[in-house]
C-alpha cells in the first residue's frame, strides 16, 4: 500500500523566492496539498517554476487590498500551514496579523538574515548568506577565491529548516490543538549546518581554513576523476595490497596515519600509475566492494542516466499536460517512504489556473483577480 505522509495537510505558499518555493516543494513531495498564492505582479522566480512548482495548485490574489485580504483570511481558515518568505516589511506584517487570527494555523516565515537584529533590514542574497555564515571562507584553496556552494543552497537549507519547523509545530498541534508562528533565518540555519566547524573554531583556536590544494582527495584516472577517502589504516593497507603498490621505503614517512593528510600530492603520485589505467567506474566499483569509500566525479548532466539513480526513480518529469516547459528530468526529493518511488510525473500549473476553483466558494461577487 502506498503511503502519503502528509495526506490531508493543506499548505499555502506565499512567497517570492526559492526559500518558500522549495519548502512548498518539500511539502508536495511528502504528499501535502500545496496552494501557491501569487500577487498579480510578475513572478521574480518564473524561470525556476518548473523546478519548484510541479504538483502545486496556483492562485493569483491581490491580498494587499482589503477584498483580497478578506479572501486570504478565509483561505487561511481552510489551511494547516502557511509558508512565506516575503521581504517587504509591511507585507510580512499583514500576513503575520492574518495568521495570528487563526489559532490552529502554523505560519512559517523564512528570511535570509533574520526577523530582528541589526542585519534584519539589509538587502541579501544567497551569496551574502554564504559569506556571512563562514561557508565561503572554508570552500576553495588557501589564499585564493572563497567559494559558495553552487546555486542557491542557503535558500534550500532555510527551506528544509522551515519544513522541519512546520512539521514540529504540526506534531505539537496534534497534542495541544494550537498552531504557532515559526521563524527561520537562512543565516542561522547555515551556521547550524556548520556546527562541527563552529565547535572546531573554539576547540582549536580559529580553525578551519581552506585546504592547500584544489584537488583535495580527488585523483585522476583514465576518463576523469574519483574521490577516495582513506579514513583508516585498514583502508590504506587494503588499497596498497589490492593494487600491488609498494611505497619506496625512503618515502614511508609521508604515508603514516599521521602524515597522509598533509601529503596528498605524494599519494596522488604513488597511485597515478595504477589509476591512470582504470576508468572512474572501475575504480569506484573496485574500492566500494572493498568497503573503501570512493566516488566518481560526475557532471549533473550525467546523473539522469546513472544506472543507480534510474533504478531508484530518482528523477521525475513533467506530465504532458504541462505544455511549453522542458519535460525534464528534474531531481526528486531527498527522502522517501522506503520502497516507494516518488511521483515519476508531475504537472506544472498554469499561473492562476486554480484561482476560481479554490476562491470562488469563499468569495463575494466582484473580488476575484
Amino acid at each position, binding site marked *: 500500500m502506498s503511503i502519503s*505522509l*502528509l495526506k490531508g495537510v493543506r499548505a499555502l505558499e506565499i512567497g517570492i523566492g526559492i526559500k518558500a518555493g522549495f519548502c512548498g516543494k518539500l511539502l508536495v513531495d511528502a504528499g501535502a496539498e500545496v496552494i501557491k498564492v501569487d500577487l498579480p505582479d510578475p513572478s521574480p522566480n518564473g524561470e*525556476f517554476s518548473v523546478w519548484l512548482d510541479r504538483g502545486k495548485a496556483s492562485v493569483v490574489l491581490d491580498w494587499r487590498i482589503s477584498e483580497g485580504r478578506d479572501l486570504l483570511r478565509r483561505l487561511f481558515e481552510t489551511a494547516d500551514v502557511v509558508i512565506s518568505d516575503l521581504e517587504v516589511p509591511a507585507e510580512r506584517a499583514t500576513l503575520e496579523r492574518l495568521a495570528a487570527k487563526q489559532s490552529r494555523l502554523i505560519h512559517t516565515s523564512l528570511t535570509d538574515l533574520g526577523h530582528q537584529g*541589526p542585519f534584519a533590514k539589509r*538587502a541579501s542574497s*544567497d*551569496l*551574502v548568506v*554564504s559569506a556571512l*555564515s*563562514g561557508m*565561503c571562507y572554508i570552500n*576553495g584553496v588557501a589564499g585564493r*577565491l572563497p*567559494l*559558495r*556552494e*553552487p*546555486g542557491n543552497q542557503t535558500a534550500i537549507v532555510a527551506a*528544509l529548516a522551515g*519544513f522541519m519547523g512546520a*512539521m*514540529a509545530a*504540526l*506534531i505539537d498541534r496534534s497534542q*495541544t490543538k494550537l498552531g*504557532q508562528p*515559526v521563524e527561520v*533565518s537562512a543565516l542561522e540555519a547555515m551556521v*547550524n*549546518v*556548520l*556546527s562541527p*566547524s*563552529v*565547535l572546531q*573554531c*573554539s576547540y582549536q583556536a580559529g580553525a*578551519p581554513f581552506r585546504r592547500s590544494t*584544489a*584537488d*583535495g*582527495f580527488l585523483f585522476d584516472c583514465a576518463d576523469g576523476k574519483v*574521490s577516495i577517502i582513506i579514513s*583508516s589504516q585498514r583502508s590504506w593497507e587494503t588499497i596498497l595490497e589490492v593494487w600491488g603498490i609498494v611505497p619506496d621505503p625512503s618515502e614511508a614517512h609521508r604515508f*603514516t*596515519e599521521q602524515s597522509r593528510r598533509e601529503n596528498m600530492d605524494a599519494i596522488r603520485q604513488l597511485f597515478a600509475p595504477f589509476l591512470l589505467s582504470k576508468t572512474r567506474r572501475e575504480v569506484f566499483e573496485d574500492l566500494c566492494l572493498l568497503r573503501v569509500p570512493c566516488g566518481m566525479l*560526475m*557532471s*549533473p548532466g550525467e*546523473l539522469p542516466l546513472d544506472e543507480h*539513480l534510474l*533504478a531508484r526513480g530518482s528523477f521525475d518529469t513533467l506530465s504532458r499536460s504541462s505544455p511549453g516547459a*522542458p*519535460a525534464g528530468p528534474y*531531481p526528486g526529493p*531527498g*527522502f522517501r517512504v*522506503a*520502497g516507494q518511488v516518488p511521483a515519476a510525473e508531475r504537472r506544472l500549473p498554469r499561473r492562476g489556473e486554480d484561482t476560481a476553483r479554490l476562491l470562488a466558494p469563499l468569495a463575494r461577487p466582484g473580488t476575484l483577480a
Partner: protein
Amino acid sequence: MQRMSLEHIRIIDLTQAWAGSYALQLLADFGAEVIKVEARSRPDPWRGGFEASRGLPCYPADGGPGVKPYNRSYLANSVNRNKFGITLDLTTPEGKAMFLDLVRTADVVSENFTPRVMHNLGLGYDELKNVQPSIILLSMPAFGLSGPYREYPGIGGTIEPMSGNAWLLGEPGGTAQVSGVMYPDAIGGLNGASAVLAALVSREATGLGCHVEVSQHEGMIAMLGEFFAHGEMESPGPLGNRDLAFVPNGIYRALGEDEWVAIAVRNATDWERLVECVGAPSLRAPELHSLDARRSCENQIDSAITAWTVGRAASDIESELVGAGLPAARVRSMRDVLACPQLAATGYLELTPQPEGIAPAPTPGIIANLKRTPGRIRMPAPGHGEHSSVLGQLLGLDAVSLADLETRGIIGAGPPPP
C-alpha cells in the same frame, strides 16, 4: 519551563558520524528524548577511537586528547548534544534482546548503516514492527535502500562528486573541487530529520508507523535542482560564485591578506547603485542595465569591480554597499562568525557546556524558532556509555544487574576490559 514540540517522542538512535548524528540532534533540539546507542567495543567513528586518533585531528588545542580522548572530539561533541548515550553489544543475544525492549518503549529508531547491517543483526523494519507496531524506522544509507550502489559505503567526500556538486564547485575555468567540510553529510542530516518529522505527522493522523529512507546522494542532488530548470542539464564546469539569475554575483579581493567581499546584483536597481559606488566609466554603458548584456561581459565587469575593491578594506566596502541598499558582505571566517553582531543580537550562539573539563563553547541554537514551543539546548553531548542508568530506568534494571551486564561486556563506558 515552556513545552517543546517533541517532548513526548522517544528515539533509539544507532546513527554515527555526521549525517545521522546531526539528524537526530536536530530532533533532540525540538525536545525529543534521543538515546544514542553505540557499540560496546567500537565507539562512533567521530569520537576518533578509544586511543587518541592519529589520523583525525579532532581534539582541543588546550589539553589535547586527555585521558578519555573519545569524549573530547569536537566532531562528536558538535552533533550529539541533547542526547543520552548508552552502549550495547547488539551481536549478543542479550544485547539484542535489551535493544528490542528499548524499541518497545520508543516511537522512532534510526540508523545509517548500509542496508545489510540491520538485516544481518535481525533488526530490520519487520522485526522492529513486531515488537512495536507503530514504530517509525529511519534508515540513512549513503545511496538509499535500493539500486545497484545500495551496499556501497559513502561519506560526504565521495557523495559530493557523485551528486554533481563538486563538478560545479571551483574557480571558473579551474578544476572541480569538493567542499571544505563533508557538506553532503549535513544535508543528509537535514533530510533525515525532515523524514522523521513527516512520518510523525503521518502517525499522529493515522496511528501507523512506517519505514522512511534518506539517500545522502539524492539529498545532495536535490540541492542542484535549479541547474535542471531549463531542461536536461548542460555541464559548464566550475561556476565560481556566479549565478544563473544575478550578474554580477561574485567574491572580490579586498585590501589585506585573505580579505574578500561578496557582492550580488539582483536587478537593474542594484546595478545602478553598484555603478554609482564603483564609479568606473566602463560600467556606465546604458546597455549594461540588461542582464543579458552584463552576462556577455561578466569577466570585464568583475575586473572593474576588483580594481575598486582591491585597495579598500572589506569592512568599508560592506558598509558602503549595504548603505546603498545592495546585498554585500565581507567574507567571514568562522572566528568572525562567532563575533557576528546579528547572531549576538538574536542570541543564536549559546555558550554551551562541554564534556571532560573542556571550556564551555558557543554553539548554534535551534534551526527553526517555534515561538510557542521553542526547542532548547539542555545538555552537552554524552560521553561514551555515560548514561547506563537510563537503561536501568527504561528496562527496570537495578544497579546490581547493570554491574553484571558491564562485567560481561554487554554495556559499559570507554574501552572494554581486556
